């Protein structure tokens, strides 16, 4: 039986469905496996790196491997990442921010305190500001809770969203393109009025009320059914891309895709 993590991987792949040629970046095991699955099934135009510097046509399996196992077909080092992938808009990234608000603004910088002395220092803004203003982005949130999906605004805005109060006259925000949020409970998008967050599919056995209760802002119920279960073909590809089973440790207790009746 498929696991919830595998169901999420398939949902990630669906988020990356595209007819274009562009860099697909999934940060973390579930996003990366989802991009690989999309590339090997419905979206061959997707381009991926080995996580270091080279473009590969065969997605590199995650976890321990020989250094030279990856087969470079192209080159995309950090030294030209902004020139080629980010500032040209030819990328779709999926990341896991620490906080997300109703505008799609995210925080990877710091929690609480002040800018001079944060209560909790995190990574820093990394490339989030540029990603957000230049290309498509999605999110994977492994523990759907009001601590991540916060009321009001995030503590620090690392990447821009659809908040009119944060826009300056004359600025070009036209490339802000937030696609999907895949969580352990559901799939959401920004398709509501003024880009409000909607729930579009619920994972098997999850209710909209349960998702709303775990979210710090109001959600729109646009549920069009259950998030699809992985097919046997998809599970086979996922197994090849994750030979060490790292996906089994992403979600606490590795629950099955379908909740048992309780």
């Amino acid at each position, binding site marked *: 039986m498929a696991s919830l993590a595998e169901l999420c991987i398939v949902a990630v792949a669906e988020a990356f469905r595209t007819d274009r040629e562009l860099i697909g970046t999934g940060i973390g095991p579930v996003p990366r496996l989802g991009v690989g699955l999309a590339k090997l099934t419905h979206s061959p135009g997707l381009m991926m790196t080995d996580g*270091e510097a080279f473009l590969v046509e065969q997605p590199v399996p995650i976890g321990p491997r020989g250094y030279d196992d990856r087969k470079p077909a192209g080159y995309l*080092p*950090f030294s030209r990442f902004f020139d080629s992938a980010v500032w040209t808009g030819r990328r779709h990234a999926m990341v896991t921010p620490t906080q997300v608000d109703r505008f799609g603004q995210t925080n990877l910088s710091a929690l609480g305190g002040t*800018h001079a002395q944060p209560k909790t*220092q995190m990574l820093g803004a*990394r490339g*989030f*500001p540029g990603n957000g203003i230049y290309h498509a982005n999605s999110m994977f949130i492994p523990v759907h809770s009001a601590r991540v999906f916060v009321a009001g605004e995030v503590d620090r805005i690392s990447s821009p969203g659809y908040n009119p109060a944060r*826009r300056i006259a004359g600025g070009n925000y036209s490339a802000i393109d937030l696609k999907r949020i895949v969580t352990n409970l559901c799939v959401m998008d920004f398709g509501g009025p003024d880009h409000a967050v909607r729930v579009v599919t619920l994972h098997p056995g999850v209710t909209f009320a349960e998702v709303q209760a775990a979210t710090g802002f109001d959600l729109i119920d646009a549920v069009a059914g259950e998030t699809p279960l992985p097919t046997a073909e998809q599970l086979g590809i996922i197994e090849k891309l994750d030979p060490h089973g790292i996906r089994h440790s992403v979600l606490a207790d590795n629950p099955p895709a379908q909740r048992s009746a309780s």
Partner: protein
Amino acid sequence: MSTLDKRMSAADIVSRLQSGMTLGIGGWGPRRKPMALVREILRSDLTDLTIVSYGGPDVGMLCAAGKVKKLIFAFVSLDAIPLEPWFRKSREAGAIEVLELDEGMFQWGLKAAAFQLPFLPTRVGLGTDLIELGGLKTVQSPYDDGEVLVAMPALNLDAALVHVQRCDHRGNVQALGPDTYYDEWFAKAAKECFVSCEELVPAMEDAYPQDARANLFERCFVTGVTEAKGGAHPTSLPPDYGWDMGWFKRYAAAAKDPGDWAAVAGQFVGASEAEYLASVGGMEAVGALPLPVF
């Protein structure tokens, strides 16, 4: 005409730096950092530094040792240990000033400095807190579009430090490996750039002419060169050696217990570079560190 002999010791290089300077440090997180030169700074009485870095253990150690007045950064990370523990301690104690940037804005600021421009325009930063917190200004396009853009200020460096595989005495460098990050722009953004290398050769054209395309930046940007075998340790220098995960774990653990840099600095810096290298097993051990996979 000078002899163009740019050879100097690491101590000579650090003696040319002054407290209060703005120093750029090449590399990226736990990758190809000029750690031998950073260790030499940690052995010196330099202080009050403004550090400009895609931060890794260089930033964590300099913060822990109280060398840093201000940090200009987009992230500080050891990759496999995502949050740099000593940097976190400094930030959460309110011990350093910061200018937090996006990774792309950061290299844009280096390029502005290299081209001797006051700023370069970008959309990056719009809609985020970086503009207000960083005191960044905007600029309007003078053309018909009238677009308002962020004016990313030049990140002018008093000095830059980078580590490469090979140098000759005149400052011809070769940086091998799959990625050289923004080392080229650190070199060009600085008044003076000091380069440490795994191998100092008499003349690059005799030693490695076949690798001339690895000449990451021209020798006119190089003030001094020094040989430092294992000079990127504990960070990685593909294809020569990987990062030292055991070292990172000890370093991260020490941030909690004892949590006092003075008590552990000797272990992570060493009284001299020779002593440090010996303490981590010498070049035999460093050269055997597996290259990280991602």
